[in-house]
């Protein structure tokens, strides 16, 4: 056990954490970055599709600009987003993408002359003009008025992460991989670093830091194997913040499901398959989406498709398998040539993981957890509610540009934009701060961490199995807190999850080998994961409306009169249940209206937008928002959207 000091402690080496670390390192601070895995193995590397930034470079992107991106983002969020944050985001995204080009990302470029694209399954030829030759080009993504997603062939996240990590290496930033942050060190509402456990040796270290950044990614793994996320996306950041008893998590019930997770592995099969004309079939080989959505068919919005798929399964039209029921994604009619070129990753995934040839056999798929809109609630400077000196960025955070549904490509863009913007704030604040905490505080947090481990090791070697609890939680969430939800099922889920949490008491460790014991590592995470699961289920039960990805069949209306707000969940010290409160979504500029796709039932606001905006800042303060460097609303571009009114009429396509 030892105590170390550093200026800035960044927990998480994905895109958000690394981009944030660069900002502080460039400002001359001593930065330490902790990660479960070597940074390049973070889940950011798995994103294939693209990163949204309104550069407007190709023909189908003409006339695009940040304000249009802002509009798409707020509509996509079903008005759950903080509109000021969405503004900052949309305006910074082009700079972030160009900076990545400067660092070496091989963005796919505009090829002048005739280009062949697939639009709604049809081959279309478009002439790209000579004067745009060699600029960063775009592809089509869901819920956007323009083609806006910048991409690097089929490996956008990989290419971006390698470029950013290259910068981290060039700057000589201290990166400690195979190190897990296990507790935040804090005192009187001020965070002073974290305790970490080395995943090579098991050694504990207390890191004392002037600023601490959570960049731990999403928490899809609370859904166990039913997620597209990597095994390491277990929500550590949210758990660390929650355990302080002070910091709330925002909108944990907002969970995005992707229609086509491969069965049984859960690996993402890209939406491009349906974009290019793939069919969804039930056990009888019937194209059910044609009946369900005659207009948009397989290309209805992601939440809508997922709901119809689950409906087919519930009505007995699913295909039985050892891994539960599924449906088919049929690409056979697209032909081998198309599949092996334009959909190469899909071809490889089918071959490698299911040993199947998609030109000869349909692909088994089912909707599956994909993205966590919820996370550590922060203000626009990225500082956590109720905890000075603690920041959160990327998927771990609820900065809140995604509201109840994030658009495809907005997540990668968020990681680098937030890394830049919040990273700059962190660097400024760190320069002004001094490490005024006594080592006694660090000692006591270290002692607590050691005791926690000792308590696990002292348990009888019989008892329940930690992996069984994990699997139980996953199946409760997957069955009852899934694509669509009802009050009855959610109530059962809440009760069952409480039981699962009690079951942890009876878990024993069968091994307690020296060094890093993988079973102990899993055991130390389980309590936090069950808490996240409970908050997700309770939040979903309480929110008696449907908004974005939160679809209640018993409350199908989006209710702006009562629910134009953000759920905040705290777990008070010693409490045995979370405490929910609700704050305004932020200042409103674009008034709540029709998204142009998805559900149509709406109940209007009862107060005027003026009134809502008058109350919002003080209410948010009362809910724990810390003061920001610029006052709330300073970055709003009031009414700028009025010149860009549009209604996206195409179906939403997300990656």
């Amino acid at each position, binding site marked *: 056990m030892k105590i170390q000091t550093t200026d800035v402690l960044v927990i998480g080496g994905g895109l958000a954490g690394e981009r944030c670390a660069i900002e502080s390192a460039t400002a001359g601070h001593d930065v330490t970055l902790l990660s479960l895995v*070597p940074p*390049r193995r973070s889940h950011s590397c798995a994103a294939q599709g693209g990163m949204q930034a309104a550069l407007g470079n190709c023909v189908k992107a003409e006339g695009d600009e940040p304000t249009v991106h802002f509009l798409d983002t707020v509509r996509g969020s079903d008005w759950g987003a903080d509109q000021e944050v969405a503004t900052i985001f949309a305006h910074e995204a082009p*700079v972030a993408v160009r900076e990545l080009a400067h660092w070496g990302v091989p963005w796919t470029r*505009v090829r002048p002359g005739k280009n062949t694209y697939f639009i709604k399954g049809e081959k279309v030829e478009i002439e790209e003009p000579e004067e745009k030759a060699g600029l960063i080009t775009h592809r089509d993504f869901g819920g956007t008025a323009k083609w806006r997603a910048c991409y690097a062939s089929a490996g956008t996240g990989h290419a971006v992460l390698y470029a950013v990590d290259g910068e981290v290496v060039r700057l000589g930033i201290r990166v400690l991989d195979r190190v897990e942050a296990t507790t935040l060190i804090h005192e009187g509402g001020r965070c002073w670093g974290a305790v970490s456990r080395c995943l090579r040796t098991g050694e504990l270290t207390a890191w004392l830091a002037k600023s601490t950044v959570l960049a731990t990614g999403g928490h899809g793994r609370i859904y166990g194997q039913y997620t597209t996320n990597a095994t390491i996306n277990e929500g550590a950041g949210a758990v660390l913040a929650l355990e302080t008893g002070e910091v709330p998590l925002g909108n944990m019930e907002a969970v995005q499901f992707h229609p086509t997770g491969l069965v049984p592995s859960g690996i*993402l099969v890209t939406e491009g398959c349906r974009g290019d004309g793939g069919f969804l079939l039930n056990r009888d080989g019937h194209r059910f989406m044609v009946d369900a959505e005659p207009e948009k068919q397989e290309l209805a919005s992601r939440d809508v498709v997922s709901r119809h798929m689950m409906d087919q399964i519930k009505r007995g039209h699913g295909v039985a398998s050892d891994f539960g029921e599924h449906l088919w994604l049929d690409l056979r009619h697209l032909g081998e040539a198309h599949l092996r070129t334009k959909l190469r990753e899909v071809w490889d995934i089918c071959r490698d993981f299911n040993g199947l040839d998609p030109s000869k056999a349909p692909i088994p798929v089912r909707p599956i957890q994909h993205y966590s809109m919820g996370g550590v609630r922060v203000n626009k400077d990225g500082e956590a509610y109720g905890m000075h000196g603690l920041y959160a960025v990327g998927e771990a955070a609820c900065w809140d540009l995604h509201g109840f549904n994030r658009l495809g490509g907005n997540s990668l863009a968020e990681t680098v934009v937030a890394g830049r913007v919040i990273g700059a704030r962190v660097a400024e604040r760190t320069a002004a701060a001094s490490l005024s905490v006594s080592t006694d505080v660090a000692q006591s947090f270290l002692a607590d961490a050691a005791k926690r481990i000792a308590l696990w090791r002292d348990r009888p070697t019989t008892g329940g199995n930690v992996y069984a609890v994990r699997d139980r939680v996953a199946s409760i969430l997957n069955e009852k807190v899934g694509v669509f939800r009802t009050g009855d099922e959610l109530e059962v889920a809440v009760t069952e999850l409480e039981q699962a949490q009690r079951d942890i008491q009876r878990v024993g460790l069968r*091994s307690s080998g020296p060094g890093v014991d993988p079973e102990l590592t899993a055991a130390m995470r389980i309590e936090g994961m069950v808490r996240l699961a409970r908050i997700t289920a309770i939040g979903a039960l309480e929110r008696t409306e449907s908004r974005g990805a939160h679809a209640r069949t018993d409350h199908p209306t989006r209710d702006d009169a009562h629910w134009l707000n953000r759920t905040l969940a705290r777990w008070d010290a010693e409490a045995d249940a979370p405490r929910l409160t609700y704050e305004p979504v932020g200042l409103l500029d674009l008034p709540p209206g029709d998204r142009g796709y998805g559900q149509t039932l709406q109940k209007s606001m009862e107060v005027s937008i003026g009134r809502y905006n008058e109350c919002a800042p003080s209410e948010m303060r009362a809910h724990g928002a810390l003061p920001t460097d610029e006052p709330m609303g300073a970055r709003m571009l009031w009414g700028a959207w009025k010149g860009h009114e549009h209604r996206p009429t195409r179906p939403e396509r997300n990656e």
Partner: protein
Amino acid sequence: MSTEMITLETPRRLRFEIFRFNPEDPSSEPHHQTFELDEQPFMTLYIALNRIREEQDPSLQFDFACRSAICGSCGMLVNGRPRLACNTLTRDLGETIRLEPLPVFKLIGDLSVDTGTWFRGMAEQVGGWIEEKAPFQAHAEEERMDADLAQAIYEGERCIECGCCIAGCGVANVNPDFVGAAGLNRIARFMRDPRDARSEDDWFEVVSDENGVFGCIGLMGCHDVCPKELPLLEQYAYLRRKMLGAAREEERT
């Protein structure tokens, strides 16, 4: 519908012979331990190893993250050959499956090796980043790049640093400073990039010794084991051409 159902008739009984050693445990000795498991449909080594850990031996160490062949965490020797475990289906293997950690890299425990430190060291050694020609201009249009060139750079960028090529390389196994196929590929990737300020002479300094391009004996043990099918042969030929050109230049001056 006549499609392949996800069920198997009679499962095979698989025998896994797994290398075990925990350097943190003074009483641990390197050995192989045998586990048996009923095969399940579409079982990958990711699924098999997790089942062994969860059902039979909770202390077993191995690494997976993405489980979709993109993060590079899970390289190991499968029946003696370096490959990714997560995209290896047991049905493509015999009933006895031997699993060992990748050589060259430092052993963390059992099947887990420290590729992260090796690759960070390599990145520092070869300068695996863009040396900028001028500072970034936040509000200027991006520098243009030919679409085909961007594609060619991307081809080299696809390396996932899994270490299979390093483990399969005779030179890397004896010379710890040799950057290996992954390192040579990375150098070629940055040499091709017009955004990088380094000249051929600068690169010559970095790579023209036995730790770099002239250390490679060109027998291509690396090429066949790369799970991402990188054009390692081409990258190596490109580098040799460039470096021999630079060497001749140096002789003349």
